[in-house]
């Protein structure tokens, strides 16, 4: 038996390691560095109905143990993703989790409906938490009623399980988590980035052209752990955790907090081989910590949370 395997709605994961959306493109560049079939799954770049060219530059800035980004949902649009990006990934034995973004309920619904029919898309990650676009993204994820309605509408048209990606930029993330569970979400992915900013000491102006951006990297790990812990105690659907993971201990810690699998974001920039390394290092570290299997650890954590 594969002690790293995890079974989630729509997803048979060889292991709990998934590159996070926005940090891996559609896998092309990383496929030159290692075999993508080793991954648990791939969360591809957010896809909108039409192609988007994103925000002005600079779009990234470094921060202590982290970074800010304000890419602005640049992507080639649904048609191109269906025509070239997803077929490219079909050569690998790896489930794709399609990240869907939009600027209106109609757009989310349309993208969900069509992208969920792509043969290698095994789940949708509904991006209601992008902090870097006006009018779309996060505005759907900071109000419980709106999040509920959008989840319900997208769930109805999706032919694969629907995971909703939550924003940490809210007063009470548990309220939003409960709302999307009620709306029919099959799972939750969390957390998206925390809104932050940096200024240039010479120009006295924000470094990012967008003024603010999303903070990611090791700096946000404790925030992610806290929120995953809270949400896992409040809902019964599974959580794919993300936020600042950079080593194998972080992976296990996040699962202990209540995640059933984890996504790796910023760490791919620091070390493009990180996902491969984490998959290779997990068994040894599990031996040292006397963890028999990931699914056992998940079960144990769930019992603790739900009695």
């Amino acid at each position: 038996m594969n002690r790293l395997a995890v079974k989630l709605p729509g997803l048979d994961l060889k292991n709990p390691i998934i590159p996070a959306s926005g940090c891996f493109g559609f896998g092309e560049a990383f496929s030159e560095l290692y075999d993508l079939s080793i991954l648990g799954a791939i969360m591809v770049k957010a896809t909108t109905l039409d192609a988007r060219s994103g925000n002005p530059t600079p779009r990234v800035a470094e921060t202590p143990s982290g970074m800010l980004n304000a890419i602005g949902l640049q992507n080639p649009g649904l048609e191109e993703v269906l025509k070239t990006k997803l077929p490219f990934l079909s050569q690998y034995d790896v489930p794709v989790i399609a990240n869907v973004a939009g600027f209106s309920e109609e757009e989310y619904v349309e993208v969900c409906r069509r992208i969920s029919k792509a043969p290698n898309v095994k789940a949708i990650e509904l991006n209601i938490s992008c902090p870097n676009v006006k009018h779309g993204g996060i505005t759907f994820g900071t109000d419980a009623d709106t999040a509920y309605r959008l989840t319900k509408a997208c769930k109805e048209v999706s032919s694969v399980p629907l995971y909703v990606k939550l924003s940490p930029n809210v007063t009470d993330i548990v309220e939003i988590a409960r709302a999307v569970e009620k709306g029919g979400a099959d799972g939750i992915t969390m957390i998206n980035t925390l809104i932050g900013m940096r200024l240039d000491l010479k120009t006295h102006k924000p470094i990012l052209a967008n003024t603010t951006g999303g903070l990611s990297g090791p700096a946000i790990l404790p925030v992610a752990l806290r929120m995953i812990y809270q949400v896992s105690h409040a809902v019964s659907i599974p959580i794919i955790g993300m936020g600042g993971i950079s080593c194998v201990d972080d992976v296990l810690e996040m699962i202990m907090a209540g995640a059933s699998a984890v996504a790796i974001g910023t760490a791919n920039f620091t070390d493009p081989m990180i996902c491969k390394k984490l998959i290779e290092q997990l068994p040894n570290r599990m031996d040292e910590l006397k963890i028999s299997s990931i699914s056992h650890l998940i079960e144990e954590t769930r019992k603790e949370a739900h009695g």
Partner: protein
Amino acid sequence: MRVETMKLISKRELIPSLYELVCEGDLVSEIVMSGQFVDIKVPRADLVLRRPISICSVDKEKKQMTLIIRASGNGTQSICETKVGDSLDVLGPCGKGFPIDFLKKGQHVLLIGGGIGIPPLFELAKQLSLNGLKLTFVFGFQSKNQIFYQNEFEALGDVFISTDDGSHGIKGSVETILNSDHFNEEADAIYACGPKGLNRMVNHRYSKHPHAYISLEERMACGIGACAACVCDKDDRSGTNLKVCEDGPVFKCGEVIV
């Protein structure tokens, strides 16, 4: 492209805070064009972004490459503090370099550089010189004490220098040299790399030239085309952009908006 632990073979400070690092490893055999770059992991856990550094010269037989790095921030400072014999975590080679295949022996090539933008022009110049081309260099520096690699370039062609403060060569910018009456601007190919102002000037000045190229710099995260941080807009009213790390860093003049 690969991620490799490369050994630091030698290091010297060319001018204050400007270091020449020679690294050795198999990655060097994959470098196919001058103008490509490598992405170096900062040897500090709190700095999460790699630093894109242009390749200054390549010795494929020795599996060595030379990088010139200005220790201008915490990251580059930390990379430059690496001791000879220790290793650097290097991703590369990244990006597309300077196209040269169209050039024929005896033709004239103009190479324009400014400050820390000059290093990638060195490997290019070495290759062009081996191919029997006549080279003219126009370089801009802040002042006399910022000049580096002058002898190395003078061995390959005619070198014209401008300084902002007039402490060496012509007072002004590279544009002052290009605009001077006696200067021969006619060239079969033009290559440039420098700060944004220089790149913008060259991009505009030679936008109609059939073989003029600039190498751009932009804040990057992944360095391999995955994150879409380092984009520049195409100059064709299409509303689309190109990635400096993957589609560049070298672009044809007039192709993108600088």
